[in-house]
């Protein structure tokens, strides 16, 4: 640069680009980002609860800054537009979304690739072990007169492999989903619902999966095929089960469009099912809170429906988004009580069995990985009663207390440390991993009581807290009664 004007302009432009975004930043933060479908970070507090300078401030400040600089949203949009217009990038950052030659979008993160290109196909040993696992679960449930229904819904790429981009090459003709589907069709002791074939056959008449509007799911038509297959399987266990058919709905063709701010758009057709009947199943949103449900389900997809017709059977349904986003309303119509939980919460099934006392447990999931995960369910008959405890309801700040909690083994199995049966102490509704173990060699037989001692319980920082006690079989389930004690700190 030779001229002073150019030099000045360069410096001014540089400083403006660095300073203006900070001046224009959202000083409070926490706004909803339309491009990211999330709330942006808030400005962090300087001080923590004890009025000391917060150790989290530094990282919180950086997160706030990264999220809230002025012009960020516009630059994200510009970046996406450039990437889409020039390079055909779809712009769904954070996820691997791929596009086929005819505009079909597929959700393809790294762990899914072996299932998409069929590089992983389970061998006979694996398929047999999964089949055996479901038969074992059916046996375990049968002890309590509960039926088992299993269903697998194929992924979009299993039904529409021809729409995958050419950068992927299918290594085997059969997918893992097809192999396990065939194996489960011949299983004993439970009913298996498979909409796989019908979803493939029907697609020549009408699309069964969303082309682009929904990156990873079936459409309403496909979902109805899935519902019918599931309920048909359930009917084998409960012959009087009411199943909704197409006659119960007024079906219209609808057009759906995905349009993004950065220029991507895609139109597709689907069916809309308008019920010709009045729905009797009603969601009860307070159910899980009432039973102190502990969940690992990030999306909080668990649901509870109650039907006015109490004579209908009761069911626990474990599945994924293929179920709770598409099927729940219709399935709930057939049951007096229906609990849905995500298979991430599989360890909660045992606890729910004692609460719901279902007639049927339905396990269903998308593709091979979900079916494999569901086959890991282990039904136990663990239960416990909290007989007494001497937790102080008022404590001195910083003072230590020992607390005795007497628990009775009301199940039909003995407890021991070898079985990893322990007492879990929750504080303020959270499981911080605090456990009281049974001493080595101690066995608590069915009907016996045992006194767990919580040593040196102390509160330093807060004015009130609460503890909850519940037994746990580590890695499997919490079980039995859960007792809560509110504590005031003086």
């Amino acid at each position, binding site marked *: 640069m030779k001229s002073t004007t*150019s*030099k000045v302009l360069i410096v001014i432009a*540089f400083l403006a*680009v660095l300073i203006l975004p900070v001046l224009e930043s959202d000083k409070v933060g926490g706004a909803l980002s339309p*491009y990211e479908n999330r709330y942006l970070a808030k400005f962090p507090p300087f001080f923590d609860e004890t009025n000391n300078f917060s150790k989290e401030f530094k990282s919180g400040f950086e997160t706030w800054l990264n999220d809230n600089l002025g012009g*960020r949203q516009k630059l*994200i949009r510009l970046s996406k537009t450039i990437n889409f217009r020039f390079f*055909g990038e779809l712009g769904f950052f954070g996820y691997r979304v791929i596009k086929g030659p005819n505009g079909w979008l597929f959700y393809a993160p790294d762990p899914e690739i072996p299932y998409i290109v069929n590089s992983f196909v389970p061998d006979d040993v694996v398929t047999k072990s999964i089949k055996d696992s479901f038969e074992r679960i059916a046996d375990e449930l049968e002890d309590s007169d509960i039926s088992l229904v299993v269903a697998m819904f194929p992924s979009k790429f299993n039904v529409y492999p021809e729409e995958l981009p050419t*950068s*992927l090459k299918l290594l085997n003709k059969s997918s893992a989903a097809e192999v396990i589907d065939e194996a489960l069709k011949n299983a004993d002791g439970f009913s298996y619902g498979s909409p796989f074939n019908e979803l493939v056959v029907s697609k020549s008449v009408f699309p069964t999966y969303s082309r682009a509007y929904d990156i990873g799911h079936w459409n309403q038509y496909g979902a109805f095929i899935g519902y019918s297959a599931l309920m048909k399987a359930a009917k084998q266990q409960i012959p009087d089960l009411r199943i909704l058919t197409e006659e119960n709905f007024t079906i219209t063709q609808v057009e759906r469009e995905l349009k993004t701010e950065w220029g991507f758009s895609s139109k597709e057709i689907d069916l809309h099912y308008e019920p010709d009947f009045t729905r009797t199943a009603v969601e009860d949103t307070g159910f899980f809170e009432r039973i102190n449900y502990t969940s690992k389900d990030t999306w909080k997809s668990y649901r509870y429906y109650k039907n006015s017709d109490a004579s209908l059977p009761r069911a626990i349904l474990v599945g994924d988004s293929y179920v709770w986003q598409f099927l729940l309303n219709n399935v709930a119509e057939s049951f007096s009580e229906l609990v849905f939980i995500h298979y991430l919460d599989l360890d909660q099934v045992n606890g729910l069995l004692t609460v719901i006392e279902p007639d049927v447990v339905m396990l269903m999931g998308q593709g091979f990985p979900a079916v494999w995960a569901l086959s890991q369910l282990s039904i136990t008959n663990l239960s416990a009663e909290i007989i007494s405890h001497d937790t102080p309801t008022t404590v001195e700040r910083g003072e230590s207390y020992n607390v005795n909690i007497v628990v009775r083994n009301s199940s039909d199995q003995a407890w021991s440390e070898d079985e990893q049966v322990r007492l879990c102490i929750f504080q303020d509704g959270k499981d911080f991993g605090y456990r009281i173990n049974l001493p080595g060699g101690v066995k608590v037989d069915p009907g016996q009581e045992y006194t767990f001692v919580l040593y040196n319980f102390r509160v330093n920082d807060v004015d009130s807290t609460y503890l909850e006690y519940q037994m746990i079989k580590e890695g499997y389930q919490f079980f039995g009664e859960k007792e809560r004690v509110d504590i005031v700190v003086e």
Partner: protein
Amino acid sequence: MVFSSQIFLFIFLPLCLLGAYLVRPDFRKYFLILASLAFFTWTSKEALVIFVVFVLINYSFGLLLGKTRSKDTLVKKISIWLVVLTNVAFLLAFKYLPFMTSSLSGVTGVELPKIDLPVLLGVSFFVFSAISYQYDIYYNKIAPQKNLADFVLYMSFFPKLLQGPITRAGDFATQLAATKLDLDKLSRGVYRFTVGLAKKVIIADQLGAMVDLIFANPANANGVSIAWLGAFGYAMQIFFDFSGYTDMAIGLGQMLGFDLPENFNFPYLALNISDFWRRWHITLSSWFRDYVFYPLEFKRRKQKVFRTESNTLIVFFLTGFWHGAGWQFIAWGLWHGLFSSLEAFLRAKKVKAKAPAAVRYLVTMLIVLIGWVLFRSPDLGYGLKYLGVMFGLVKPLETGLTLGWYLNAKVAFILMLAVLACIPWKQWLPKYFEKMSGSRLNDPLRLIVFLILLGFSIMMVMSSTYSSFIYFKF
């Protein structure tokens, strides 16, 4: 805190520039010390304490060496050994301890206890700066720095603290004495910084995403063409990452009135490996030349056979080890050392290469590329297997992912940009650039290029923090 992070760009840098230009000139160095320590503290407070102790020890060592300069040779030698070994021990402790304990455990079969020391970013760089300072005193090239503030600033100056360029104390002290802030230097610094930022975020980071995917696969889970793409992509990524960082460091130095040394000179145009090392990470190569190679040559001057070759191998072994605690880095260093030694041998025998320049170039780049595969690999076994796939010695697994999966339109475009940016257009088209330089359009064109680079870079920086949360798969 890296130069391309938002906290650096939008908070630290403007405040630092503002402070540097507003404080009285005689207070400027104190301000820069504070800024540099704040920059370092962003990693951790513990690291800062260790760093400050390290600097103070070296300051004292410098004074000690200064006092022994007039003493007899033995005292002088003992002093420099003490000083150098202390610095090397510090480096070994903070960078190589886990590697050494795991290697020792592997050899002896005895499980050694793990010692967790704080991570000291840039430890290799500031320890080398300290050693060069002490050696320069020992060799009477410079006088010990008596002014503590000047020494602290030399050691901690934030533009060069984490990744160099490795600066010599004498050069720095000379500049510090004559630091002057002016519009010319500021604008040159801004331009250079922006070019570096663009290299980093537009080229290196974008290629890095593709390279990471390939190297995240098992070594034999990439097809031949994908393995070559990964190697080529990494060669480009590491060059634009490191040279981009250096440009930013030099630019920052200029903005604050210092001229830091150059580190790169179109390394991918080298015609042999020795030439490559004259163009790649120049300040490190010259450090090893001055403080390891020449002393070794002098010490072993009576040895006539295989002296230079073996000294070259030693230097490259150390170069590899300096880059990281892992056998893959040592293998990378020795790989380069092998060819550098061979070239030294041929030079000594006065054998001249008869192959055409194009062939020499391709062979050199192939050697460099193979080296980068070892360098990028998580361990030596992985690197060798990966190379086996590249050269058809290991049969790759079928993964179903074709070359097109990784080489999409964007990656292809950025690779093309990278290749074009590796060419010294100014040297190749001197007449055109001379003409342009004299033209009235020169400044406006440079301004436009600057604004485009700045705009795109800021867009990339801000959109890199984008994280979506779409609940379509559970």
